[in-house]
């Protein structure tokens, strides 16, 4: 505290000091020169007329230096001010005045000076006094000044600190934030402790905006004093846990600047960051995505490690292909090599690749950002996909990148650089967009060259003719650099694609007669490289080129021709000596590289045709001997010794022929962008192809994935509150269910033992299908996610309860199918008129996955998942020895996996809901959109509700005891313990804000289950669970029901917890249909109308309730009032409001947690037309409910 106290006291003293200094100076000024009036010539200051004499005096750089020197020695003290009394007097005067307008004018001029880069540091004392000025604009400008000059005048800057410290305590969050912002921007080392304190405090501020500012302040402090790193990391860790989108981007930016190596800090926040991403502001998105790319590279496995296998046959066949591996007909050698490598590892491992759900989460949540308007965001996502996505999915980024090509030329430049790198690795991705890379004459040269690069990379047998035709037009361009680049590009195409080599060569030869020398020269160089590949066939071209030596002046081209002739002199035995003769004549006038080649040519000819060329060679060597360039002299001497046999000639001369006429390998024309992808794409380092300062290397994929459980987030508080509540529980009904997901997982492990269907799909297949199922359920709207979870649960549960015996008789494999059939059953049943015939029909349809539009989804999901499990099991059987090993791995996985998936879903859903719900104030009634948006998933999500009865509503006619049950834990998974649950629709007496869930345990194992209890609940914030009292013993064959309470917080997110027995723990989750989140209340018709009225009126206000109206056509069976009432009450826990007219049915209820009113009315018209109106304060609930009821009524 002491330094702070000192600082706090400092201002007063310092202020006095300045005052006196000012006063003295002021007096002197008055004595010396008349003070200029503000409106006089001074105005020029502001406008910055360069002819102002005073500008000339100290406006230039030299003047600045001088001034600064003064200030530094004098520290703004009297002496320096006295020596230049005229400077800025007027401004000082104005700053000292009492009028705000004068101060403002002065500050504006000063800031204008700063903006123009003029030095205004000598005004520091005068300006800093105004830091406490009341006028907000003056204050802002003073801040601007302070931030700019505080570094140079540290002592005086301290005067202002107390003002900011006061600001830090201000009740207004924006003042707190701006005080922190300026305080942290003052680069004065002495205030580091103050800054540190301020940052720490701000990091736990209530306002997210202040916390954001704190995040911004962290790198500032770090750059000022790197020793604070440890403390700052603590703050970063704290802020990383922040749940608001406002903070996320800024804190990740701080993380990247301060401690990018502390990847471990991200674990706990990974899922949150993924889920928040879409709502973070665009700049934050870029930083987060780049960081997550790095993170993912350290935490997940390479999704392409099995890519070779995948490529061969795709799907199941891929597996047979292990011996065909060598036949891959990809032309790119590199890729092949790579493949082999990965293949090798794949074979060694033979471990099916299953994408970590967190990996998938990242890919899924970043994908929509490809649609961002911000090029940097798009690029960030593109590089993320390029570096992290399975090969098959990378393609999605191409379209977005091509879109960026229409943007400003700088954007194009950067994007093209990245596309060039990508197109080498993944050519297929950009092939469809080939034409987008066509060059216009108006493109800047650098863009043209890059486009050319991309076109060359994309060239293959099929499109080469179009590309070459395009190139032909480019060759005619006036931009010679571009033409040269085009010729090189043609050369590269020719080397890469054998079929067109001759065509290209002919084209290039034609260019040799071009009038432009540069074009010719470039062609010669490229032809030289091409000829090197197959010289025998092209002696006429060589002859043609020999003729060119008379005309071409470009040294590089001449040198190339000479080299060619020398190298292939055997093909042109007559011409070669003649060329040498000509060259010998002009030797002295040639450029150095040409001279060297002449010597080479002479030497080669001497060795092959010494009769004709002996003298010529001697002559050339003699000329070279006296050349000015020592390289040439050296070369001549060396060659003479080597080729001309003398007495003294060493042992080497024997090998002269070998030395000179050795076969030279043809050059490989490579793209300059090859292998650039070891730099993270989109980064500055990638662009420069050199490591930039502060670049974080993109790590290689790990061999084995690190423990994924580090990303699990625990919610401890809720568990504690739960434990407290357990004691109050009274009723003990039974339960029997488990999470379907978990069950499935277990099945995966079990199945191989029972089924022996084609066991060939292998690791690749499962990798594929795993990702497929994931993407299948994920790619749709996010809410579908949440839906799918519950759907599959439903279907399984239902099947489970209904088909216990079946299962035992039938093989496990068949069971799946049975389940599918059964899964459909409850729907018709619930639809009030269950006819056995219908049921049969439905079950007959089992092979056709789609029955009702709503069902199709759940079934698809189901199907695909079962497929995935099948495929996995198949893979496991494929090699007997590994089965056991694998079984272990798969079996050990389930416990950790299900909660993860669940978590993910839940979060996803949250972000979705937030997405529309983010600001309750501004968007109260955007009803229809949300409605539509949730439609696909919720329909199925809520389907399960249809059978529950409504105890409290007197008018419902739902047969009680028909509560729809869901499976929580399957018998197989639970090792004999099966658990089911249903929503009992009874008020939960210990806490009325909770939804009562009746859980029924059935112990079908041979031994008794002990100490059944709930543990380790992982809940969304705000959600609570009241556990049932522990069941101490459940004997074999017995069934027990208990009731537990869950406060879902009026959301349909799942409650996840562990169900523990004395031996095992099972991860389970309960997801409520929206209709169960409410309880009925009784109302009269008038009350109903009144409530509805008030709701509608409050609609104008932002916090008002919503009304959602939908038109629908009632199904035939459901056209009576009776049927309508029944269906609505089955779908949602509402009570009927008595009503006079039989055309109208009204229902009322309130949400369990917050008690918000839910009003539903159905007005029927003729021909089954009806109108459904839902009023609910909770927009999300309302929309979901509409969908639900709509479904109940129309099916």
């Amino acid at each position: 505290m002491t330094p702070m106290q000192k600082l706090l006291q400092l201002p007063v003293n310092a202020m006095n000091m300045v005052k006196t200094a000012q006063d003295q100076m002021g007096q002197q000024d008055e004595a010396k020169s008349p003070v200029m009036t503000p409106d006089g010539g001074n105005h020029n200051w502001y406008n910055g007329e360069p002819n102002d004499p005073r500008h000339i005096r100290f406006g230039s750089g030299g003047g600045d230096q001088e001034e600064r020197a003064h200030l530094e020695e004098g520290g703004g003290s009297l002496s320096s001010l006295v020596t230049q009394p005229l400077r800025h007097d007027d401004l000082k005067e104005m700053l000292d005045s009492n009028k705000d307008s004068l101060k403002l004018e002065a500050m504006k001029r000063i800031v204008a000076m700063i903006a123009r880069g003029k030095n205004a540091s000598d005004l520091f004392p005068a300006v800093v006094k105004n830091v406490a000025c009341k006028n907000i604009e003056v204050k802002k400008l003073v801040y601007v000044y302070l931030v700019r000059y505080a570094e140079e005048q540290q002592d005086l800057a301290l005067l202002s600190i107390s003002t900011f410290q006061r600001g830090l305590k201000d009740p207004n969050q924006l003042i707190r934030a701006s005080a922190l912002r300026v305080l942290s921007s003052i680069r004065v080392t002495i205030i580091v402790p103050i800054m540190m304190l301020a940052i720490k405090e701000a990091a736990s501020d209530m306002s997210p905006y202040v916390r954001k500012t704190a995040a911004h302040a962290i790198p500032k402090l770090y750059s000022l004093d790197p020793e604070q790193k440890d403390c700052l990391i603590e703050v970063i860790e704290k802020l990383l846990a922040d749940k608001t989108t406002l903070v996320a981007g800024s804190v990740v930016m701080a993380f990247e600047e301060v401690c990018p190596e502390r990847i471990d800090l991200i674990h706990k926040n990974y899922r949150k960051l993924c889920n928040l991403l879409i709502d973070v502001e665009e700049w934050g998105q870029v930083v987060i995505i780049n960081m997550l790319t790095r993170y993912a590279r350290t935490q997940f496995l390479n999704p392409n490690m099995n890519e070779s296998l995948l490529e061969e046959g795709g799907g199941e066949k891929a597996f047979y292909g292990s011996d065909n591996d060598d036949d891959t007909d990809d032309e790119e050698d590199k890729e092949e090599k790579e493949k082999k490598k990965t293949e090798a590892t794949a074979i060694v491992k033979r471990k099916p690749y299953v994408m970590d759900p967190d990996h998938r989460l990242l890919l899924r949540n970043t994908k929509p950002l490809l649609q961002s308007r911000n090029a940097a965001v798009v690029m960030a996502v593109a590089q993320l996909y390029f570096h992290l996505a399975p090969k098959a999915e990378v393609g999605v980024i191409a379209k977005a990148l091509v879109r960026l090509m229409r943007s400003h030329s700088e954007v194009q430049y950067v994007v093209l650089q990245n596309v060039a790198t990508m197109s080498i690795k993944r050519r297929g991705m950009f092939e469809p967009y080939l034409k987008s890379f066509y060059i216009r004459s108006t493109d800047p040269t650098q863009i043209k060259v890059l486009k050319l690069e991309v076109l060359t990379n994309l060239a293959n047998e099929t499109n080469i003719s179009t590309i070459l035709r395009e190139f032909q037009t480019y060759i005619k361009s006036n931009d010679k650099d571009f033409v040269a680049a085009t010729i090189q590009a043609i050369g590269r195409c020719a080397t890469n694609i054998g079929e067109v080599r001759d065509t290209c060569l002919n084209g290039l030869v034609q260019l040799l007669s071009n009038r432009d020398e540069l074009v010719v020269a470039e062609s010669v160089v490229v032809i030289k490289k091409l000829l090197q590949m197959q010289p025998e066939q092209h002696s006429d071209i060589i002859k043609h080129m020999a003729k060119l030596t008379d005309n071409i002046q470009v040294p590089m081209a001449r040198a190339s021709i000479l080299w060619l002739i020398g190298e292939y002199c055997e093909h042109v035995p007559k011409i070669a000596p003649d060329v040498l003769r000509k060259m010998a004549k002009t030797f002295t006038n040639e450029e150095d590289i040409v001279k060297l080649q002449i010597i080479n040519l002479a030497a080669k000819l001497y060795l092959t045709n010494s009769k004709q060329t002996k003298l010529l060679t001697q002559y050339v060597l003699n000329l070279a001997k006296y050349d000015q360039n020592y390289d040439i002299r050296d070369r001549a001497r060396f060659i003479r010794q080597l080729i001309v046999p003398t007495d003294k000639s060493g042992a080497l001369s024997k090998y002269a022929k070998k030395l000179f006429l050795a076969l030279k390998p043809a050059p490989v024309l490579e793209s300059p962008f090859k292998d650039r992808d070891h730099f993270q794409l989109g980064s500055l380092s990638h662009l420069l192809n050199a490591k930039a300062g502060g670049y974080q290397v993109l790590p290689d994929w790990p061999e084995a994935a690190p423990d994924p459980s580090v990303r699990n987030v625990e919610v401890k508080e809720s568990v504690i509150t739960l434990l407290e509540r357990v004691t109050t529980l009274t009723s003990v009904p039974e339960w029997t269910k488990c999470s379907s997901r978990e069950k499935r997982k277990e099945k995966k492990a079990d199945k191989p033992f029972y089924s022996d269907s084609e066991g060939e799909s292998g690791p690749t297949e499962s990798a594929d299908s795993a990702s497929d199922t994931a993407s299948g359920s994920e790619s749709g709207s996010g809410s579908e996610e949440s839906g799918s979870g519950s759907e599959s649960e439903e279907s399984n549960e239902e099947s489970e309860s209904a088909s216990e015996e079946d299962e035992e008789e039938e093989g496990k494999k068949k069971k799946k199918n049975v389940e599918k059939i059964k899964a459909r059953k409850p729907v018709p049943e619930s639809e009030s008129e269950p006819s056995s015939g219908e049921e049969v029909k439905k079950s007959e349809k089992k092979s056709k996955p789609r029955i009702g539009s709503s069902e199709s989804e759940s079934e698809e999901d189901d199907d695909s998942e079962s497929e995935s499990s099948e495929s996995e099991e198949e893979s496991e059987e494929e090699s007997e020895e590994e089965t056991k090993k694998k079984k272990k791995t798969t079996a050990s996985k389930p416990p950790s996996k299900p909660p993860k998936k669940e978590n993910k879903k839940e979060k996803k859903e949250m972000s979705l809901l937030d997405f529309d719900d983010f600001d309750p104030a501004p968007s109260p009634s955007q009803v229809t959109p949300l409605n539509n948006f949730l439609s696909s998933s919720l329909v199925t999500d809520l389907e399960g509700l249809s059978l529950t009865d409504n105890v409290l509503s007197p008018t419902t006619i739902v047969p009680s005891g028909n509560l729809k049950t869901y499976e929580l834990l399957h018998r197989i998974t639970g090792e004999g313990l099966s658990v089911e649950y249903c929503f009992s629709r009874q008020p939960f007496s210990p806490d009325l804000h909770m939804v009562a869930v009746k859980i029924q345990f059935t112990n079908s194992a041979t031994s008794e289950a002990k100490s059944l209890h709930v543990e380790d609940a992982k809940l969304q914030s705000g959600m609570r669970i009241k556990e049932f009292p522990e069941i101490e013993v459940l004997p074999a064959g017995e069934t027990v029901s208990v009731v537990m309470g869950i406060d879902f917080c009026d959301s349909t997110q799942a409650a996840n917890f562990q169900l523990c027995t004395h031996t095992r723990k099972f991860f389970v989750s309960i997801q409520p249909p929206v209709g169960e989140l409410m309880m009925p209340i009784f109302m009269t018709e008038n009350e109903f109308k009144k409530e509805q009225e008030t709701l509608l009126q409050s609609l104008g206000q932002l916090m008002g309730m919503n009304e959602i109206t939908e038109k629908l056509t009632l199904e035939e069976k459901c056209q009576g009032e009776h049927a309508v009432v029944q269906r609505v009450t089955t779908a949602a826990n509402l009570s009927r409001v008595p009503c006079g007219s039989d055309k109208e049915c009204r229902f009322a209820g309130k949400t369990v947690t917050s008690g918000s009113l839910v009003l539903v009315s159905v007005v029927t018209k003729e021909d089954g037309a009806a109108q459904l109106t839902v009023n609910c304060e909770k927009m999300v609930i309302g929309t979901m409910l509409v969908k639900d009821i709509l479904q109940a009524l129309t099916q």
Partner: protein
Amino acid sequence: MINSLFLINPSGEIFLEKHWKSVVSRSVCDYFLEAKEKALEPEDVPPVIHTPHHYLISIYRDKLFFLSVIQTEVPPLFVIEFLHRVAEMIQDYFGECSETVVKDHMVMVYELLEEMLDNGFPLATESNVLKEMIRPPTILRSVVNTLTGTSNVGDTFPTGQLSTIPWRRAGVRYTNNEAYFDVVEEIDAILDQSGTTVFAEIQGVVEACVKLSGMPDLTLSFMNPRLLDDVSFHPCVRYKLWESERVLSFIPPDGNFTLMTYHVNAQNLVAIPVYVKQSISFFECGSDGRLDVTVGPKQTMGKTVEGVMVTVHLPKTILSINLTATQGSYTYDNGTKLLVWDIGKLNPQKLPNLRGSLSLQAGAPKPEENPSLNIDLNIQQLAISGLKVNRLDMFGEKYKPFKGVKYITKAGKFQVRT
């Protein structure tokens, strides 16, 4: 992140500098100025320059260079995108982005820059937020300011920064509530000598001008959203809804903004609204050449093609030209060798034609390549792709807004090779 910003005019004068971290001497710009000297055109200056201690990332826009200095690794597009935002912000505030404008509003630009970045990291880039903090100048306000001595700095706090919809100001009130949408489509095409299409695509943009009170929530739907192949949105648009329902649902920013850009499905053939018959030839022997260009309407869907303009960069060796136009007028700048023929409206009955002779510098060889023609045109009330807005619904507010949609087709990068 971004360390400093320099604004440089085409002649190389640095007329504004702003530092967000420690001051970087402006001598760092010398590297840039050197590169600029080397480049033939301002566009040819490399956007990223590596100097011993810094990296310079620059954009060229509206005849100004925006040069940023950075010290450590940062995605280049991040910087480039930000610099463009700065230019757009200046444009938005002062109506245009030019040296004069910046010099006239030096202090305000400086203040804006101060707000846009904090320690080199973007803080407030949304125009609605900025305008709340620093009010844009209007004639009325500047009069009031001079009379009363008040200023442009907002006395309210930027509450927009606190909200999760930072793009919209709070408490907007209008007497006339209106929402206008312009669907502007641009045809990018390359036609070859014979008039066949080498490449053509349609890029569209929906520009919005929304002046609605309160917090409206809009939903814009199209008749034929399937046409849209690739889209990008203003951050206000809800991605998921687009994905599932193909509607644009958003709480709009206040004022003008670009709602979305799109690319029309490549499968659809692009209707090319005009054809160009041209012949430019140079005689081998004499130092002479001929130019003959005719423009006519092709697939115009019954609309008139307006604002037709043909721009030709003639070869450097041209000495003078002597042309006659049957319609419109042409200008020729002998310095830049730029020929601009402003035709105006296309009349199908009487096709505009430009012909005459070109004379080359004595002794100069015949130019290798004939110059390509760049065509400019616009067609009112037509979206060439056939895209149609179905309806616009508003939720969240009670008043009835005035709604309007306008369609325009323009030529984008429309080039005819000769």
